[in-house]
């Protein structure tokens, strides 16, 4: 039959939608990721480009960049992290409310990149738990959008309902020491 409502018919089912709590919570969360732009170097310029009209990160519901960690739930570490800044990143991460995610954007944030030196933290995953890594130096805005879509997929797989009533899961940071 033409024009038949397959998914949902209020005449048949009433004003009720049956689903799983996880699906609803995750769906809400993934479509309103509020990023905290931790712009530390040139990757931040690509991050800005991703927010501007050509690439338009708002197509994925994450255009609300918040410069206050209290209002953000996804820290995008865009740039080189020095040891002096590592402390700041950790404190800002701790100030973000749960649930929260971290995206390491670019070579520097992921591994220290080309900065193998006395001043540079060799990967932001040593100080905060990272959910998605982006390669590139700097990554193109498409790469950032791809990572954010990957993050959305990751959010969809979380046990949100279970974690609502207990203490939020403590994600791990990388613990291996580089030096001997």
């Amino acid at each position, binding site marked *: 039959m033409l024009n038949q409502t397959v998914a949902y018919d209020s005449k048949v089912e009433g004003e009720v939608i049956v689903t799983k709590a996880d699906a609803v919570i995750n769906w809400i969360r993934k479509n309103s990721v509020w990023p905290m732009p931790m712009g530390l170097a040139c990757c931040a310029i690509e991050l800005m480009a991703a927010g501007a009209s050509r690439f338009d990160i708002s197509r994925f519901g994450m255009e609300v960049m918040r410069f206050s960690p209290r209002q953000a739930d996804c820290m995008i570490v865009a740039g080189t992290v020095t040891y002096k800044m590592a402390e700041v990143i950790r404190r800002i991460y701790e100030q973000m409310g749960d649930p929260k995610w971290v995206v390491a954007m670019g070579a520097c944030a992921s591994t220290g990149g080309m900065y*193998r030196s006395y001043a540079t933290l060799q990967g932001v995953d040593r100080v905060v738990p990272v959910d998605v890594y982006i390669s590139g130096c700097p990554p193109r805005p498409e790469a950032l959008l791809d990572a954010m879509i990957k993050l959305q997929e990751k959010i969809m797989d979380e046990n949100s309902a279970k974690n609502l009533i207990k203490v939020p899961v403590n994600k791990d940071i990388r613990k291996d020491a580089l030096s001997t």
Partner: protein
Amino acid sequence: MSDIDKSRFLSQFDYLTERESSDHVALNCPAGKLIEFCTSLRDEFGFDLLLDVTAIDWDVATPRFTGVYHFYSTASSNYLRVAADCPDNVNPVLPSLTSIYSAADWHERETYDLMGIRYEGHPNLKRILMWDSYPYHPLRKDFPLAGIETPLPAEDVAERTNLKVVAAPMMGGPFHSSGDGKMSQTEPSAKDESWNEQSSK
């Protein structure tokens, strides 16, 4: 570019000596006379801009540290380089130029931070790039590029994350591009990538 007459400096200030240079006029000045010379540079010769304050570590040579100053005259468009050796190799000290050029303030703090040269008379001589409790001066020749293990300045963060300042994995040395040839073939890379932190050289 350099049409300034260095003999004028050399005849007026008998403590100056000529310094080898491939570009601008360069002069050696004893550390004790630096304030006097720079004051007349600014007031009599029109060098109204202090462009750069830096230093050289000559490693095993004596004198080990040389402070280098770049001046510019906006009136005559001339550059001038002045170098001053630090008399002491262990505790290098130079007079601060902050009383003459306020531009010297942050430059001297940076040189103090990275080279460990103390500038006497500086109003606020503390580190500008590394954190205050950092124990080394990283641009000195005896400091390894990878760094030396030190505790993180924030104790509470170090406790929660178990993070320390550690020597960076060099794995063939620092990244660099050969610079010649196609960009696709001259991506910055380490010279010898056959070793890493798991398998040693």
